């Protein structure tokens, strides 16, 4: 949102489709986002909303087929990563953009020690000698606060706990000092006590390296704690884009409002929770109207006939709702 800063990564009008046996699934439609140095953009959404597909498209990790990027650009350091050659993309994005996945156990190679996996990265990318790379790998493990790093570097991934494995993933991600870090549900598989440690570590490293971060999550608590800006996705589209303070104080889309209202309130434990009715739509059967209207308590006739475009709704925020102003007023 902060237009005065130069973004380190810009996604414009990104659309991704998947060819399936049952038809074409429009997983992401017209997605745009800006990542600024030292700031955190939270992409909030439930499963199937397109948040992980967006991240994979940025990283060039989508298998094609079945995935097809049908439009858009991903601009990093002046180049569109979607049009450059695969070699160029690896040279540019491999150094400058890193990703942390939810499941660290399947992202690490089970038959190599974690130290050798970290060192290999440094040998290939930085041309370090074997011993130098190992020393640096141990340093990195120390930096992500793994106790006794020199000994633990000789251990295999299965010998670490979930939290420690996620630290190793983070060490690999920051090894090349990337400009942008994409964290895809980095703490979803972890306990709250470990989640708090990992989020603190990420925030510290982000400051140290002045990285821009995209945090993909479904957890409103995590968003409130670490994000600067929030982008809410629903059924493959951006429905709201605002600062974290704006979103939590006055949500500008009925979906965001519903999510916030369904958080259990400790002061009203006996009351029924507010619940958004129904379930997310099947992306195969989207029509020309608003995808949220069947579950929306603001829906009117126009919502069925015309899909609301994302539009400015006052002080530096966007909403894709025909009645955004009214939603803002009741919040």
């Amino acid at each position, binding site marked *: 949102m902060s237009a005065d800063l130069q973004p380190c990564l810009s996604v414009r009008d990104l659309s991704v489709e998947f060819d399936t046996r049952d038809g074409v699934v429009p997983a992401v439609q017209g997605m745009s986002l800006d990542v600024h140095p030292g700031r955190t953009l939270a992409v909030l959404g439930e499963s199937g909303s397109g948040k992980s597909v967006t991240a994979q498209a940025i990283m060039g990790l989508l298998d094609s087929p079945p995935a097809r990027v049908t439009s858009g650009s991903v601009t990093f350091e002046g180049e569109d990563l979607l049009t450059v050659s695969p070699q160029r993309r690896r040279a540019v994005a491999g150094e400058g953009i890193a990703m942390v996945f939810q499941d660290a156990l399947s992202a690490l190679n089970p038959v190599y020690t974690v130290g050798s996996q970290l060192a290999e990265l440094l040998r290939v990318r930085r041309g370090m000698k074997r011993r130098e790379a190992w020393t640096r790998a141990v340093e990195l493990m120390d930096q992500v606060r793994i106790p006794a790093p020199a000994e633990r570097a000789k251990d295999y991934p299965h010998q670490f706990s979930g939290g420690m494995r996620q630290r190793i993933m983070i060490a690999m991600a920051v090894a090349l000092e990337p400009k942008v870090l994409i964290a895809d549900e980095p703490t979803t598989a972890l306990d709250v006590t470990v989640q708090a440690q990992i989020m603190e570590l990420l925030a510290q490293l982000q400051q140290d390296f002045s990285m821009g971060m995209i945090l993909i999550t479904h957890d409103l608590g995590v968003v409130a704690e670490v994000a600067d800006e929030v982008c809410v996705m629903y059924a493959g589209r951006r429905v709201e884009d605002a600062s974290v303070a704006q979103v939590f104080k006055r949500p500008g889309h009925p979906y965001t409002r519903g999510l916030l209202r369904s958080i*259990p309130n400790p002061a009203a434990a006996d009351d029924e929770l507010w619940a958004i009715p129904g379930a997310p739509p099947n992306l195969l059967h989207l029509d020309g109207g608003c995808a949220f209207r069947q579950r929306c308590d603001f829906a009117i006739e126009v919502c069925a006939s015309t899909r609301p475009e994302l539009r400015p709704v006052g002080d530096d925020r966007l909403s894709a709702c025909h009645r955004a102003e009214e939603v803002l007023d009741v919040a």
Partner: protein
Amino acid sequence: MSPDPVLAVTDLVKHFPVGTGMPGARPVVRALDGVSFELRAGETLGIVGESGCGKSTLARTIVGLERPTSGSVTFRGRDVHAERGRSLAALRRKIQIVLQDPYSSLNPRRAIRDTLLQPFEIHPDVLPRNKRLARVKELCDLVGLNPEHLDRYPFQFSGGQRQRIGIARALALEPEVIVCDEPVSALDVSIQAQVVNLFQRLQSELGLAYVFIAHDLSVVRHMSDRIGVMYLGKMVELGPGAEVYDTSYHPYTQALVSAVPVPDPTADRSGRRLLQGDPPSPVSPPSGCRFRTRCWQATDLCAQTSPELAVPDGAAAHEVACHFPLLPNAS
């Protein structure tokens, strides 16, 4: 306690042998190491704790899926693990379980009709054959499933609907106690509130008692009359929900509560106490108090003697297992 506990768990111990060695000398995982509590009719007892603390083993032992190493689980005075034959079958009807993952807990090759009729095939004397289908339709109405969808298969339902099927199956034999093992954590955020509300409605309509196990503390707090906090196979604090949450006596409970991300960007996070490291291995738990290796106020006494769960002297109102409980006027 209450004059009418429907379920009593007494000094429950469950050890799983690991690795190899002479019988009796093999190392064991101390999943449960002396857990006791009572559950009253119509009450919800929430159980929280990190992964590996024994929550799920507790659930499985209560419903009879695991045999305890020692200790007992009694339903209205009858030992769940001592009964045999017909009386065991009658007992098992009364205690049912709802599992975490609605995807893997339903047989993908069975139509929902068959999944919901199965309890009556296992317990044929509950209902004559010609009345079962009507009962299954009644169950569908009760949990908010369309009875016209009985011929569908699990893959044709969303996660939230599948969890409703799992709940209908648990209700089929008219139980008095339902053990819920992480029943909403696999569901999308917008669906969780619906299922939480369903659990509460069923409780007030049918007078069910719940053991509600979850790692999401805000949901547990919303659901529970009382909350038990587990750490490495032991219950460390047990009391009324709001009390355990707001005035925790045990250092571990305080740390656990303060690690939960607060969905409010303006919240004051300065008083947060972050736990370091992971829980120790349940194969060789620390001597004395099991939490002492991560506790900021542990002394020699904590290493020597294991504190018992009891109401401490002074201003305390509920049970805690700590030598130095953090009582409101003492700290």
